[in-house]
């Protein structure tokens, strides 16, 4: 629609390994199937089954006011720049804000940290543990 993106902005996080294995759209670019969603929520799209279903449900409750967790079996992961499953966060403007090539506990912790950087969660639900995340899981910077 608009020929603009914000790849590399502090507003987006990309946990793609080395950057090389992942295709467009990158975080900061518009998610091409956005028109089927809409509304003013963020949408978490989970591709393939999460290995931490309980954590995913808790994440949904913790961010219930501003984030919807969606399973869309008919949405192709390649359209979200993923090849072997994972999660993306689509922002209310239709641009991807976060990408992680898995949907496990580390992915949920990273997404929780990303959301916490600019949104306010339900304070009655504790944040996710991030201690087990390795340094290599830090988002790489694109420039």
């Amino acid at each position, binding site marked *: *629609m608009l020929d603009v993106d914000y790849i590399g902005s502090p507003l987006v996080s990309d946990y793609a390994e080395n950057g090389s294995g992942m295709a467009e759209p990158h975080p900061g670019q518009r998610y091409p199937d956005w*028109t089927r969603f809409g509304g003013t929520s963020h949408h978490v799209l989970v591709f393939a089954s999460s290995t931490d279903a309980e954590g995913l449900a808790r994440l949904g409750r913790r961010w219930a006011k501003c984030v919807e967790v969606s399973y869309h079996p008919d949405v192709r992961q390649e359209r979200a720049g993923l090849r072997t499953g994972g999660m993306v966060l689509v922002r209310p403007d239709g641009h991807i804000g976060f990408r992680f090539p898995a949907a496990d506990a580390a992915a949920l912790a990273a997404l929780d940290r990303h959301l916490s950087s600019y949104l306010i969660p339900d304070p009655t639900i504790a944040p996710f543990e991030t201690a087990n995340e390795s340094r290599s899981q830090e988002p790489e910077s694109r420039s």
Partner: protein
Amino acid sequence: MTQDEVLVVGAGPSGLFAACELARHGIKVRLVDKEIQRHRQARATAIQPGTLEILDSVGLLSPFLETAEHVQCTRLYNADLSELRAATFAGVDCRCEFLCSLPQYETERILETHLVSLGGAVERGITVTRRQRWSATRAPCSMSTI
């Protein structure tokens, strides 16, 4: 003003939309404008597909579609009126593949009607003259009424 209230200065399209969204989310908002009366000037006359998508996301698209001309194609002409280029909005990855053309006062009328339906109002003839850091003993801004 109280500490849990938001002041929006200027009741143009941006201020009106901001006030509508605050009201929709249950936040107390005051919207003030220095002009006493609504204007009747065309000003910004085109609403782009991306803006229409935002209006749709908050349930406000239909009054704009009903009021505006839908511009499906734009054409550029040379000085001799030969056509330089034509462009449509087909395939722009948006629900609305057209522009909406309407005078800005109509855009403001639609947004103000929506704001009133949400319990808000535009306070006209008020000029913000000073703003300052919030403290317990003084208001964050001063306003004068015409």
